[in-house]
């Protein structure tokens, strides 16, 4: 533990400003949510768990998050390996493109997918022919969720790979390990903290996604309504308890994510 130093007045002022700022934008909103939830008592949660639409929404969100977790977990690791370990034409462009979902507004993402798969979209004729419905349906929402959560695992894993170098992999190869053995026994265990961190971020982003799934999915109750779009619709229909109840569930999930990120960081630092 570093010794605590006395702060001079200037530093005290700065600290107070930072704390006030954090309180206003981080702590206060979460506190408001918690207070409101406590005021309404257990009835609010009951309102959620007895409402089939709410349960459907929650289930849909979990399924979407699960798909994003598996899909972008696998693709993220593979893409990170390719980006970090290989040199090829267009690598720089790809490296930039990967961050696109961070820069683009989710609403625009939803809109872009509509342009591809929606009425009059590029792929619509073929999809109609094949009898597949993408927009305002589950497949479209999967695509949108995969898109917005794409960079998280990839970036965390790529960062760790870069720091790691390939010495250990080369050592494994000279000891007779096959590419799969090298990956499973050496690369993957070394990636585990970065991968875990990236997966939690992916999960958090998928649970919280609103704009993209709203635009491409249309938030049809019981069909394409997710947890977040449920909150939005409930607020519009002045069903406040249901909205707060769902918000409380999502907020609890967020706190759990925060705690697991912190745990991963600590484990990682301990092994450094």
């Amino acid at each position: 533990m570093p010794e605590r130093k006395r702060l001079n007045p200037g530093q005290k002022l700065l600290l107070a400003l930072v704390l006030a700022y954090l309180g206003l934008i981080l702590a206060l909103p979460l506190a408001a949510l918690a207070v409101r939830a406590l005021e309404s008592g257990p009835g609010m949660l009951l309102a959620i768990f007895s409402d089939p639409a709410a349960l459907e929404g929650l289930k849909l969100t979990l399924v979407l998050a699960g798909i994003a977790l598996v899909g972008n977990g696998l693709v993220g690791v593979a893409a990170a390996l390719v980006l970090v370990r290989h040199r090829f034409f267009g690598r720089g462009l790809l490296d930039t493109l990967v961050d696109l979902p961070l820069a683009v507004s989710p609403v625009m993402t939803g809109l872009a997918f509509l342009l591809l798969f929606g009425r009059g979209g590029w792929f619509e004729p073929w999809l109609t022919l094949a009898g597949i419905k993408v927009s305002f349906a589950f497949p479209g929402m999967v695509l949108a969720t995969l898109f917005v959560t794409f960079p998280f695992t990839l970036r965390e894993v790529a960062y760790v790979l870069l720091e790691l170098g390939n010495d250990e992999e080369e050592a494994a190869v000279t000891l007779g390990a096959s590419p799969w053995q090298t990956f499973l026994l050496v690369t993957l265990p070394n990636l585990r903290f970065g991968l875990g961190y990236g997966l939690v971020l992916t999960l958090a982003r998928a649970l919280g996604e609103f704009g993209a799934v709203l635009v491409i999915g249309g938030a049809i109750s019981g069909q394409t309504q997710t947890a977040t779009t449920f909150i939005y619709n409930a607020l519009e229909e002045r069903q406040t308890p249901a909205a707060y109840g769902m918000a409380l569930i999502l907020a609890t999930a967020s706190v759990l994510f925060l705690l697991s990120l912190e745990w991963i960081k600590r484990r990682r630092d301990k092994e450094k």
Partner: protein
Amino acid sequence: MSIRVDHLYKRFGDFVAVDDVSLEVESGELVAFLGPSGSGKSSILRIIAGLERADSGSVFFAGQAADHLHARARGVGFVFQHYALFRHMTVAQNIAFGLRVQGKSRADQGLRVHELLDLMGLAGLGERYPRQLSGGQRQRVALARALAPQPQVLLLDEPFGAVDARVREELRHWLRRLHDEVHVTSIFVTHDQEEAFSVADKVIVINRGRVEQAASPADILDHPATEFVARFIGDANVYEGKALGGVVPIGRLEIPAAGVTDGTEVSAVLRFYDLKFWKEDQGIARVVRTMTLGDRVKVEAVIDDGPVIYSQFPRRSSLLAGIEPGCRIHIEVTLARLYPKDAGILVSTTPPPA
């Protein structure tokens, strides 16, 4: 297993790392690749291991071409400069790795791990993680891990570069002793001449991607084949001049150059210990400084009408009698090596070494 390398070339972009290298290592030999950093010695080692692919040329193990063999199929143990231990595995798991991927039974793995822990003086450390070990211990774990699958060839890339001087000394003895016990054909890369000469049976001096000389340590010291070797090995004065009447005059110092055609431009390499200074008022140089370096004394003098010259004597040498800053001295060249300027190949030594 013997190793032969034939006309190896390797470029990295515009940089030629390995430039037509051919060399041979006999079965059971312990060989050092010695050269300055960036000389290509590590690249040659990595090509032999199969970690790098040569642009052209071939590597032979026991006379069989190995170029088509993947690194994992070459049966080569490799020790990396920064250990490259598997950080999430214990020492025992690290050492067992090669056997594990071969599908050896747990019992066999355990036996071999035990054997190597003992051999390396690591007994009792099997359950530690690499981060809990000192640099010297880590390097011994890396060595044990490379030896566990009983490789035919052991390659070590700057194996003692990352540990401090005292541990380095200790590890050198280790490597030499280990080699005398295990007799696996070994090559290690180093930029430290003392390390190369004290450990290796044969030293291959490499500079700018080329082999300058391959010979025993004694031969390299006594018969440097090229100007680079003469300059690089041992401390030496290097002068450039023109032969004239059987000598190369450098100021008032005349370096013997019997048999060299007048007018030939040469580099003259004079090792510190191939020079004798003695006090003489009519001498040809003036002493500027004397420096005590442990058991040796280095003397710096300025040749009349010429450059600085250094020599080195044992501290208790009678030659040092009366030598002090400001005194005048005579210089005797007991051995000079002359290399024509463009060729860099030895043309004359005076007197010829026995």
